[in-house]
């Protein structure tokens, strides 16, 4: 009589979201950015209960008076708040109230990260005093708001500092003279090269960076009253733009900084982050934590649950145990244009079995790209031999085969006589068998003309209907930089 076999507990290494950012231990990398969701202690404690790992307190400084109204947004195709804009200033609560609540939050949530965002007038002793008061409240770190682009900048603070590298370096230096906790400098995107401000912060001794702050913006104008939004007694002022629309801009700026050895520091990514995918993308470009505002303002603190859940699931699938395992892994894949392989080529392939016949790829290619998608599957298009030419080098003529233009196609359709199909008699009406895409509506790619721009695959509403397929050019990889160098060496 043997013992039943007992399976040993598998020692799976489950991924963790715990991380350390510039020396600050974090339960997870999800912080609320300094903004209305972090106005007061009551909010921040509820946010921690919902799962946020940290919060950057709404910027404190000399108490301000805000205007009414303050926010405006851009909706896109029925989706609300694609882009969001605000003209709210820093905290309009007395600093002592904020500091008292910070201490209370830290006492009740000792493992959660509380960062004090600071903005005071550009005087050394004023900064020293504010640093002292914040650290006395027990915060885990300081974020210097050198980014706010509206209102405060008119008073010589916020982006007025961030836009001038010398100021940025000097104030960072003052803060570092005093600070005992890590100092994060928040960068403004309203500058021609964000690396200049980042390098200045690094020279000033900053421990970390956060980017980006909001972008100067006017979201729109009321076409009845001609008054821009947000409306303050009939007038408006440029605000700070954020939300999903700014993510690509933020990713680029984060990458620029993180790829620059003179600027790179621990980075807290900010800008349009609302999902775990967004967070992962910022981290792949080097961010160690991410900060969220607009998405939380739109949907509430609860969004953090899927940000964590989804990111952990992705980490499991990819085999990453910690954020450090994948942080920055996409940085080497970003390079200057001149270092891209000119001899790499893709062409569009339309998978007819998936095509629904909307012909958006056709009109996009004709009007917005290179006139190489045609509606000729029933007119011999499929029998056209593929020569293997690369149009980037071989041809420079639009529509070399004289295919019908969109206007010609449309004019033909308008002339066609259509009638309502009578049941049991007519089986050929356009509306009578809509389950199958008629062959004449499935576009064809002229492979010899396609430059591989991606546009058709981007406009196609059906997933995986148009794919970009690699074509062997038979040429060794060559970048523009190499080509120029080779040409020069030949000359020499």
């Amino acid at each position: 009589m043997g013992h039943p076999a007992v399976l040993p507990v598998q020692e799976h290494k489950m991924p963790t979201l715990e991380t350390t950012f510039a020396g600050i231990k974090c339960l997870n990398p999800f912080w609320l950015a300094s903004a209305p969701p972090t106005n007061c202690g009551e909010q921040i404690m509820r946010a921690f209960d919902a799962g946020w790992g940290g919060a950057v307190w709404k910027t404190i400084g000399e108490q301000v008076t805000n205007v009414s109204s303050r926010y405006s947004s851009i909706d896109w195709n029925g989706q609300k708040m694609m882009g969001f804009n605000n003209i709210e200033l820093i905290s309009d609560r007395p600093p002592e109230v904020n500091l008292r609540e910070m201490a209370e939050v830290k006492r009740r949530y000792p493992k959660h990260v509380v960062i004090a965002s600071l903005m005071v007038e550009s005087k050394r002793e004023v900064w020293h005093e504010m640093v002292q008061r914040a650290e006395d409240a027990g915060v885990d770190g300081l974020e210097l708001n050198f980014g706010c682009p509206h209102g405060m900048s008119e008073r010589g603070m916020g982006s007025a500092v961030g836009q001038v590298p010398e100021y940025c370096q000097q104030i960072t230096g003052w803060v570092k003279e005093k600070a005992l906790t890590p100092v994060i400098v928040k960068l403004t995107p309203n500058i021609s090269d964000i690396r200049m401000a980042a390098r200045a912060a690094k020279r000033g001794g900053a421990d970390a960076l956060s980017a980006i702050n909001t972008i100067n913006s006017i979201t729109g104008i009321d076409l009845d009253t001609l008054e821009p939004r947000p409306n303050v007694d009939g007038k408006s002022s440029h605000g700070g733009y954020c939300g999903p629309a700014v993510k690509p801009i933020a990713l680029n700026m984060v990458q620029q900084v993180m790829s620059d050895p003179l600027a790179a520091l621990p980075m807290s990514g900010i800008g349009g982050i609302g999902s775990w995918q967004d967070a992962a993308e910022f981290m792949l470009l080097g961010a160690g934590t991410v900060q969220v505002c607009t998405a939380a303002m739109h949907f509430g603190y609860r969004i953090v649950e899927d940000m964590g859940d989804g990111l952990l699931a992705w980490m499991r699938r990819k085999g990453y145990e910690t954020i450090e395992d994948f942080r920055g892994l996409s940085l080497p894949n970003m390079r200057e244009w001149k270092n891209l392989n000119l001899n790499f080529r893709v062409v569009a392939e339309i998978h007819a079995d998936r095509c629904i016949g909307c012909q958006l790829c056709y009109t996009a290619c004709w009007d917005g790209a290179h006139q190489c998608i045609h509606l000729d599957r029933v007119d011999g298009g499929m029998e056209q031999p593929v020569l293997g030419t690369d149009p980037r080098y071989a041809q420079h003529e639009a529509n070399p085969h004289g295919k019908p233009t969109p206007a010609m196609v449309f004019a033909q359709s308008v002339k066609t006589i259509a009638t309502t199909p009578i049941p049991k008699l007519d089986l050929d009406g356009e509306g009578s068998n809509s389950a199958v895409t008629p062959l004449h509506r499935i576009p064809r790619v002229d492979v010899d003309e396609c430059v591989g721009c991606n546009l058709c695959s981007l406009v196609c509403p059906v997933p995986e209907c148009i794919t970009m397929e690699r074509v062997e050019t038979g040429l060794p990889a060559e970048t523009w930089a190499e080509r120029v160098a080779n040409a020069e060496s030949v000359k020499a």
Partner: protein
Amino acid sequence: MSEATNFFSKAGVSAEVAARFADLHPPLEKTAAVTEALRCLYCFDAPCMGACPTHIDVPKFIKKIASGNLEGSARTILDANILGASCSRACPVQVLCEGACVMHRYNKQPIEIGRLQRFAMDALHASGDPLPFTPGADTGKRVALIGGGPASLACAAELRRRGVRAEIFDARPLPGGLNTYGIAEYKLPLAESLREIDMLAELGVEFHFEMVVGVEKLAELEASYDAVFLGMGLGAIHKLGVAGEELEGVTNALDFIAGYKSGTLKNVPSRVAVIGAGNTAIDAANAAVRLGAKEVHMVYRRGSQEMSAFAFEYEHARKEGVRFLWHVTPVKVVGEKKVEALELARLESTEDGSLVPKADQHVLLEVDLVVLAIGQGTHAEFVSAAAGADAGKIRLERGRIVIDRETGQTSNPKFFAGGDCTNGGREVVDAVADGKRAGIGIAVWLGGAILHPTHRDEAAMNGAPGGLAGSGAQDANT
């Protein structure tokens, strides 16, 4: 001669009928319309446009709803289909635009094109604005149009936009033909048809009512007008050809539907039988239910697979509570002075597809009202006799006027035709498309008329005050 306009006010709308025949497809509320409009993919050379007999540029008008340009949306619709409001309600969109929607192939609901079109047209009507077109400069030409249904109305609109006078002659007291009198009230109320025609009257279309055009009158019109458009539709509904058909309580679907729509028929007895299984039969049967009948049967000689009604109409009738008697045919209408019952014979299909009654299997269906809906006959034969000797006769085939599909011209060049009298009976939108082509065809034939009427916005995009680019190129194409 021409009547004063405002036909809409002449619609005797009965509150009870309105309540019983509430919209089958209720109007879209604004937010819902914009949401639905945003779902449209904006296909190029869209299949919905191709499927529409009048080729309304559907993605274009839908985009304008999404952008809040309702004025432009209505104009886009009307430019292609002057009866865009009626068609938005009456069209069998399932087999037309919505049937062709690419969403079917994407595992999604098709765009609700019909309801969006109605939304744009309702917005125009609510604005109180006239049609966004102006009559063309007077060419001095005059066209007589026989019949005031959709084909003639569409033809007349094209003529007016090209500066041709258009005078409609109709046998009824109100214009619109079957559009006014023949479409189920829950799809297109009589008043809505008239509202649309009021706008045509503002464009200068003239009307002569209660005017039956026969051989002599047609000859007179031919002599005094520059061209004649024949849009008189089909004739009476076929008779059953069985004993007892003349009894009180036997009517036909067209009179029945026109009766309740115009308010002369207010209620029905409790047991109704509708003979036939086409779309008109369904409309009659559903109306009988809504007018208070307790038991409505549809009687058809073949099975559900063979019925000529659209599948969605059949489903609708089932939901209304209509019962179906398949594979039977009436052999006798039974009754003393009034209808009391229908004697039905069971039918069997033979190998060659013909139907043979089973002599021993007769059933008696007790009914109080019999509504015949077994197809309309033609009534165009007189036109061939009327056409002037020098111009040649108008050719008919199986009672239908033969036309050149692109121009609507008959074998007698002065006569054009369209709608049911040429196609044997199709939808409103088919008649509109016919009328539109014929209107353009007549203008071309008369010569001198402008071929491409521009409206103010088209002119503006070309640099003219108030108007659109592209119309210049369009003109070059014609």
